[in-house]
């Protein structure tokens, strides 16, 4: 459909944004940057700090952009990152 879209979707309220909480074990990180490289939403970025292993661990740029695909967890060789869905938290 070639029409230009000029109005925001009316039912956008219906879709709840993913409610992600990203956990990093910074000192476990060996600075391979896989999580930064593979994140489809570009949520992570290399930080300036230096961790116990002497590398720059990632930092979170914008947690709200995370869609909880958990690919970062899957690719991390050191089990240093995982994501939880906050909307599942309170025992729902």
């Amino acid at each position: 459909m070639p029409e230009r879209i000029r109005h925001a979707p009316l039912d956008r309220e219906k879709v709840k944004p993913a409610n992600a909480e990203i956990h990093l074990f910074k000192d476990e990180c060996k600075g391979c940057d896989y999580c930064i490289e593979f994140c489809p939403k570009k949520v992570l970025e290399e930080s300036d700090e230096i961790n116990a292993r002497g590398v720059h661990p990632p930092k979170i740029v914008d947690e709200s952009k995370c869609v909880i695909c958990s690919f970062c967890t899957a690719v991390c060789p050191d089990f240093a990152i995982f994501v939880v869905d906050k909307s599942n938290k309170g025992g729902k």
Partner: protein
Amino acid sequence: MAESKESGPKQDPIRIGVYVCHCGLNIAGSVDCAEVAKFAATLPHVVLAQDNRYTCSDQSQAGIKKDIKEHRLNRVVVASCSPRLHEPTFRKACEEAGLNKYLFEMANIREHCSWVHLYDREAATAKAKDLVKMAVAKAALLEPAEEVEVPIARKTLVIGGGVAGIQAALDLADTGYKVYLVEKEPSIGGMMARIDKTFPTMDCSICILAPKMSDAGHHPNIELFTNSEVVEVRGYIGNFHAKVLKKPRYVIKDCTACGECVKVCPVIAPNEFDVGLAIRHAIYTPFAQAVPSTYIIDMNLCLNKEGVIVCDKCIKACERQAIKFEMKPETEEPEVGTIIVATGADVFDPSGLPNYGYGRFPNVITSLEFERLINAGGPSGGHLIRPSDMQIPKRVAFIQCVGSRSDRNSRLYCSNVCCMNTIKDSLLIKEHWPDTEIYVFYIDIRAYGKGFEDLYQRARKEGVIFIRGLPAEIVENKKNHNVWLIGENTLQKKLYKIDVDMTILSIGLEARKDSEIIQRLLTLSRNQDGFFLEAHPKLRPVDAATGGVFFAGCAESPKDIKDSVTQASAAAARAGILMAKGKVTVEAITPIAYAEKCKACGLCVKVCPYNAITLNKDLKRVEIIEAACGGCGTCAAECNFGALTQKHFTDEQIIAQIDAVTEHDAEKKIVAFCCNWCSYAGADFAGVSRMQYPPNVRIIRTMCSGRVAPKFVERAFARGAATVLVTGCHLGDCHYINANYQTQKRVEALWKKMEQNGLNKERLQLLWASAAEGERFASKIREMKPIIENVKPEEIDKAKKVFEKALGGS
């Protein structure tokens, strides 16, 4: 056709019969036909010349047949209308009298003479004489030819799966032909699927379309390619080879459309089907009734790129395991006999009209967005709400002719459907919310169809207020996002400023932005509005000029559903007629090679657009594959040794025409070469539209401008012609793939030669004009008048000398 062979030119003396047609007053009004006939009688080989009121009438045709027998005519020339109109009629008459149809020639003294020189009887008569002389000169050299019959593949390619495409496909499939239905979008249904109700009966649009969509999806004779595009078409009538690119859906047919995948998909985007008023996910189906119902993944949106599965939520959710990220684009290559173009139309984008504020004011929407809003399957569940605050509007205005009938956005045509669509929409609002105040601002209300006026009267009775005079401007109230419409009521001559909650712009239809692709693939023409041009506006309204191609729906012009369906059935019937016959004759206009002259240089092999010529290195000559030849004649124009010529358009015949034009007063004339498909048709169009231009042009018809050999142009100059005009289809639109690039190359070489020899290169003009560009042709002729007037006799003599060589050899 044993008889015609006996009467071949070598045995018998040539006996030509000339018939000059009055065409009522169409020709006789500006041309002295009796005088032309008298002149024709004096021409060499002419044994009979007469003028008739209507040469195409049964009586006159019977007369021609009688004369062929009684006067032993072995060539017939009719001077009347365009050969594009009546050549088949007279060829048939000749055949019936036992004369090979290739021994017939036509002089176009209506479209190219009487109609374009309405007020200059003397000049028109002189021109008509010249045209007859040219035709007679060519006729004397005509040769009988036999046509090749080729079988027609009993299959059809339908491009576009809107209601027109669906109807055409179903009609043909029910007749028993195999149909390939190609749709660009993920689902068939087109524009009709997006509309809520249809006028004038207020039927639910998708309710009447969905069964047809489903029929098309399940028909054993229909193969459906959705999310697919036609990327290549080669071949000719009866034998088209198409290439269809099937883009991957990433979901296989096992999908049950349960929708579990959508629930888990984390990415969202506006749904194009709802004009962005609703959201969809990366895995989606555009609408509930979609055919095929298989879901599709939008790879621009999906997180999984380049084969890396980052997110597997849909895969996990799909019980049938129907999601396959490894799917790749595929190409299908159907071989079909006929093609139906049902590509539909786009809607006008009103963002370009700043005075209406569309895109800036949330409560100014288009009629297409309105259809989605009022539709129960749409984002608001059928509740008319305004986008700014989701409230039901109390006062609504419709503005007509947004993107139609206006030269401000260069869309001068009426879009045909918007008046009735608005009336229907206003009644829909009244049905659900009777207290809504509705204003309709219009230029004219065009309720021309069956039941349309009733609906209009009903809307008026229901209290819809019609105001003549479109608003000049829309201004938004920043506080509550209401809008003021400011303009003049042209019936009352009063200014108005009306405050409404929401405004709907009734947008027009326009030619699809991607029409150009189909145009090039199938070598079609488009009119000035961008819609595809039919072969004849009255009598062949669904045929394209390209054989075996037909139109259905809005691709040809804006039309409503009923007209689209009618045209689709007509197109299916026209395609069916061809396929029922099972074979088609191909015009005998392929090249002839004279092996003894061939130097095996291979130039013709290079220029052939169809790769129909091969070089036989052992025998040192070229060989022609007739079945592959398209008949443009560019090979004959390229050959420097006279070893190739085109049947029915031989060098001798064209030179005879040039010589006939330049015999007298050459220094005042334009020798014009026009290609059959675009510029000759364009010149015809100028005639039909009665565009007046100077009478000094003499048109020689070739199939393609690529046939125009440099020696033809040189010969015209050598014989003292003031100017030469070479015309053809626009570059890229050539009916013979790319043969007109050769034309350009040759004309440029000629220009260079003229410059080097100190000649004014303006005397050779090149024009690209489509079949719809009559005015372009006419204004070129007008433009060339001062050039002719400024050519000095010494320049003519100089050109004669420079091109002297061209006079020899024939």
